[in-house]
């Protein structure tokens, strides 16, 4: 079942899905598993497993630190795929690979798609791989039923959104504001406007991310988007108050 129909199906039961995020190997794979258990119990629909990279230039401080520490403790691509396999088999939510293009490039696009498939991933988010550079990878992905998640942003022109929309499959990731991951976004007319603009150029489900951290954000998005994407806020909660905190965080968020 493709990502798009998976989302459609989940949307039958709730009006706003949630995608969560963990950085593989940070603070450890065991901790990742604990977080994922909590996310699963809270009813998270989709999870990005970030493959750590030494130059995570689109990430904010918390994820930068997580990437760094994970690599320092020896995390490898093999481990990430193994972990993904474990996760995709164990949980009912779907799993995406998130990472930087060099990780893909170094193993080769064919190998990447194949391994992702084998590990049970349904798609990938590679923020530094723009449209212009992605044709080959997208073609391979399509052949393997893997979805490339396209990002649409507040700086994208209508023309650009049209191009992005044209190649979008599975879902699109609407970046709610400029900047890197990690700071709060002011949910308001800007975000609504952006979602509306994006909607004109694609029919696939729409996740909105960057800075989502509260029930209020969820309420704001409900009816406007298909999915809320929660990254930093969850990791921050885990760092601050561990498993119990994280449980509470998701409980409140998804109440």
């Amino acid at each position, binding site marked *: 079942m493709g990502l798009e129909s998976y989302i459609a199906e989940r949307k039958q039961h709730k009006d706003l899905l949630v995608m969560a995020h963990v950085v593989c190997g940070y603070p450890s794979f065991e901790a990742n598993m604990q977080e994922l258990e909590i996310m699963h119990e809270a009813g998270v629909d989709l999870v990005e497993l970030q493959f750590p*990279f030494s130059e995570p230039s689109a990430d904010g401080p918390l994820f930068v630190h997580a990437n*760094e520490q994970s690599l320092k403790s020896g995390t490898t691509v093999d481990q990430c795929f193994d972990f993904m396999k474990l996760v995709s088999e164990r949980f009912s939510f779907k799993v995406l690979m998130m990472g930087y293009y*060099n990780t893909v490039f170094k193993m080769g696009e064919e190998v990447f798609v194949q391994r992702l498939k084998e590990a049970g991933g349904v798609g990938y988010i590679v923020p530094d791989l723009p449209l212009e*550079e992605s044709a080959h990878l997208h073609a391979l992905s399509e052949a393997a039923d893997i979805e490339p998640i*396209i990002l649409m942003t507040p*700086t994208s022109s209508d023309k650009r959104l049209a191009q992005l929309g044209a190649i979008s499959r599975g879902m699109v990731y609407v970046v709610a504001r400029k900047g890197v991951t990690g700071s709060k976004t002011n949910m308001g007319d800007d975000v609504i406007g952006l979602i509306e603009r994006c909607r004109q150029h694609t029919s696939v489900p729409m996740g909105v991310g960057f800075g989502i951290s509260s029930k209020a954000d969820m309420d704001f998005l409900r009816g406007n988007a298909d999915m809320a994407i929660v990254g930093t806020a969850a990791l921050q909660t885990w760092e601050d108050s561990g498993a119990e905190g994280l449980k509470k965080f998701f409980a409140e968020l998804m109440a």
Partner: protein
Amino acid sequence: MDIFDFSDGREGYYGKYGGVFLPEILHATIEELLVCFRECKADPKFWQDYVTLLQNYSGRPTPVTHLENLSRKLGGAQIYVKRDDLNHTGSHKINNVMGQGLLCQRLGKKRVIAETGAGQHGFATATMAAKFGFDCKIYMGAVDVARQRPNVFWMENLGAEVIAVEDGQRTLKDAVNACMRDWVTNMADTHYILGTACGPHPFPEMVSWFQSIIGMEAREQILKQAGRLPDRVYACVGGGSNAMGIFQGFFDDDNVELVGCEAGGHGVGSYMHSARLAYDDATVGVAQGYKTYFLQDKEGNMAETHSVAAGLDYIGVNPIFSYLHDQGKVRFEAATDIEVKEALKLTMRTEGLIPALESTHAFVTAIKEAPTMSKDEIILINQSGRGDKDIFTIADALDDAKWKTFIGGKADQYRGENS
């Protein structure tokens, strides 16, 4: 040869290297930059303004100096040096920075950001920002902030804010990442003044274009002074901007051999160097917005690099050079830290020149090869910067005891004042 004619290939690609690998959010910004740059490049008045600015502010044209003593001593080729060390702020970095300053004005932006490693590019950018009235933020790895305090001191006094980047290895590449993070947030009013011919298109082309003033001047000067073209041209290669700058003057001269000199650090096999093309350790990858040879592990995580010259201590190389290396158009050599120290001492004593440690890498290779050449052959070295600003680095490199004593005394004096 016009490597910037993309009509036969993909815009921004040099063979398989180059490109734009940036988050979607920057697409419009980099497009806007590209459009503006194309306008500037097509506008003869822009270049004229650029040259006038550099003449009146930075002292261009910089001269070409004949090193008679060194040539005699080595007994081979006649050595000439292009003196970009005489630029305002002490290196070729100012060329690029002034050019991008003009372009930033044209873009209507009021704020500039820049990465810096050794501090030369940050110093130049802070200077340009003071001159143009831009707000300026310089990102610098925390390790570099600690060891390059003199440059930080000047940047701050020139009105720039210097941010110590605490991520990653806390050096140059991490400062680049920090710039990217600032840029994706503030692109509306901010131009990113990239310091070398790396990064996403159009930076390699744009920085090379601004730096081409070095080669244009040098070709004319050497013809006038030596009566003919050089047989070989040497330049150090960090990101590759000064080398691209001088080499472009000779791209169409088939008998001129171009030699890029990288940082050999502790030498072949040490994995403590920054030689991307001269040694075999680098592989092709994609990072910091472009595709080129990087020093990285097999999974694509960047390796630790090393050089006595902070300005060469970088993981990637100008994508144009990756291409020209493949094509055999430019030869790449590496100079080790030890060789650099010896060549620096020799150059100071024989000619009264103090090349920056970066530039000294080009001297090393030239000094090695000159004796094997005949007396009527000609060598041209690009002296991209002056070393006198890097006294801490050079005094450390030469392990100068009196210097250490002096610093100890200074520290005691300061502590005394405070107590």
